[in-house]
């Protein structure tokens, strides 16, 4: 093997200099970038509305409502890293909760309803994956279709009628999903952290997670090296579906009512969280940490804008500015340091 050493001895290796700040910027650039964005926005709100942002209530409100879409943004990050997309998860939320409310009414058992809901979400996600993998249709098109399909199923079955969930309020499930820990921390915030840790572990500490990156980066080489691309993608679609159904339960339990329109309005917030968090739209790179922080940035803007004295009409304008500026900066910086 010594000849190999000789052959490569002159390999250009010193072009980047010694391991210093640049090394860490390269390695943790995405994470540093998103934290910087979060701090700048927080400072802006803190200065603009010192009274609101120095009290717990505003943070409690963020922790109560941001999980509704942060939960879905986390597994969706896996899908985008694998170079796929899912537009159907808002409808899967509604579909899962439709199953929940049917089982709840018939069996009068919230736990059974909860399990049925998760299974329904899992199967709906799996169906997305199956169509994408078996027929090779772009997931953008497939999930655009299933998004209409599941919403349509919900509309036909419920005829637009909602279901009251007050009967679940006395169950352990209610407290576990949307109760308040120590009367302060919303349980859904804890679940968001739990899901973030689980998804992070899956992505970074399991073989299937490692294959998620490979599927999104170079699917040809992944296949050639024996990665079961179809299995990885179907699994991730199924996870997204199941977590969407879970998020649907959390949202509905919080208001103790199931609306058939559940999920509408979450699509763009969720996707924005993934992309603002630094996940590449082309696949292959992205972090769970980035998505987690980005979701809370997106979740804080609405209330923050009102608190600093601007009207709510400013919300979308600021969203737009932050997303475009942050993503442009990230791209520019990653070119500079990689």
């Amino acid at each position, binding site marked *: *093997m010594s000849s190999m050493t000789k052959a*490569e001895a002159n*390999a250009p290796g010193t072009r980047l200099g010694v*391991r210093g700040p640049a090394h860490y910027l390269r390695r943790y650039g995405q994470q540093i970038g998103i934290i910087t964005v979060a701090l700048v926005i927080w400072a802006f709100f803190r200065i603009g509305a010192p009274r609101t942002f120095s009290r717990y209530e505003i943070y409690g409100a963020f922790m109560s409502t941001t999980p509704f879409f942060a939960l879905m943004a986390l597994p969706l990050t896996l899908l985008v890293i694998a170079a796929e997309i899912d537009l159907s998860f808002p409808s899967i939320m509604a579909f899962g909760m439709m199953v929940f409310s049917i089982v709840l009414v018939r069996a009068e058992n919230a736990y059974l309803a909860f399990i049925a809901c998760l299974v329904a979400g899992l199967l709906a996600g799996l169906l997305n994956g199956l169509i994408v993998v078996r027929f090779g249709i772009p997931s953008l098109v497939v999930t655009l279709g299933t998004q209409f399909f599941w919403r349509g199923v919900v509309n036909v079955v419920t005829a637009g009628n909602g279901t009251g969930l007050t009967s679940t309020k006395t169950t352990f499930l209610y407290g576990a999903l949307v109760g308040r820990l120590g009367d302060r921390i919303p349980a859904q915030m804890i679940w968001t952290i739990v899901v973030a840790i689980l998804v992070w572990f899956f992505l970074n500490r399991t073989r299937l997670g*490692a*294959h998620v990156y490979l599927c999104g980066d170079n699917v040809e080489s992944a296949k050639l090296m024996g990665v079961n691309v179809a299995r990885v993608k179907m699994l991730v679609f199924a996870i997204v579906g199941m977590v969407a159904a879970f998020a649907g339960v959390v949202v509905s339990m919080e208001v103790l009512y199931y609306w058939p329109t559940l999920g509408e309005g979450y699509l763009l917030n969720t996707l924005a969280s993934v992309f603002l968090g630094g996940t590449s739209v082309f696949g292959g790179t992205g972090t769970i940490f980035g998505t987690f922080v980005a979701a809370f940035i997106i979740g804080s803007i609405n209330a923050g804008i009102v608190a600093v004295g601007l009207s709510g009409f400013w919300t979308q304008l600021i969203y737009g500015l932050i997303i475009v500026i942050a993503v442009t900066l990230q791209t520019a910086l990653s070119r500079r340091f990689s």
Partner: protein
Amino acid sequence: MDDLLRLIDISKSFGEVQSLRQVSFRVGRNEIVGLVGDNGAGKSTLIKIITGYHQPDPGGEIYFGGKKIDRMTVARARELGIEPVYQERALADQQSLWRNIFMGRELTQAFGVLDVRRMQQETEKLMTQLMGFTSTAVTPDSTVKHMSGGERQGVAITRALYFRAELLVLDEPTMGLSLSETKKALDFVAEIKRAGKAGIFIDHNIFHVYPVADRIVVLDRGRVAGEFSKEQITLEGLVAKLHHVAETGHLDEPQAA
């Protein structure tokens, strides 16, 4: 002769197009076989069958190490130690060096948890001992997208040898490389022979194949048009034959494969 790989009467069609017609092909143990031919000659199809990426049409036979292989899949090929090394498709650009080395063969510890630290350490060892990266700037965490063509070939061949591949399948390892990078890539090919392993070296460029190959097989329009051991033919003679094959589709005297 003791064959490592033997294909008998392998055909492959894609719809109407017949890509391979009854091709027989063999590779001896510790032998480097050059596979040359024009675009569309069937080189890629043949190696995709050998690596289990395509299934041949019914009727042919594949033997590896003397054993008949009923169904060659990507997983089966890897179990047997057949390792493809593609220049363009070998590496995932945005991933770190260690993820590329252990692509599809990640090391795990208890409960199937990835052993990231050990993969990084092993990569670091390979980098200094085999690939010759001495700089502290290139770490196992560095992405591979800025590496040169020769370095990328080095990573892919090192990966194959590290996992004890028996037969390395090199698809145009010198394509698009500069002169010095080509030299590097060819040195790595020679390293396969020195490590006691076998290789199939696919290239358009006979001038790159000839110096490192023990035997050269010429494909043309889906058939084996000729086969020469290095003792049989000079480089000039081979070039003349290749021109003749390209024009007529056959050699002067039919050659038993």
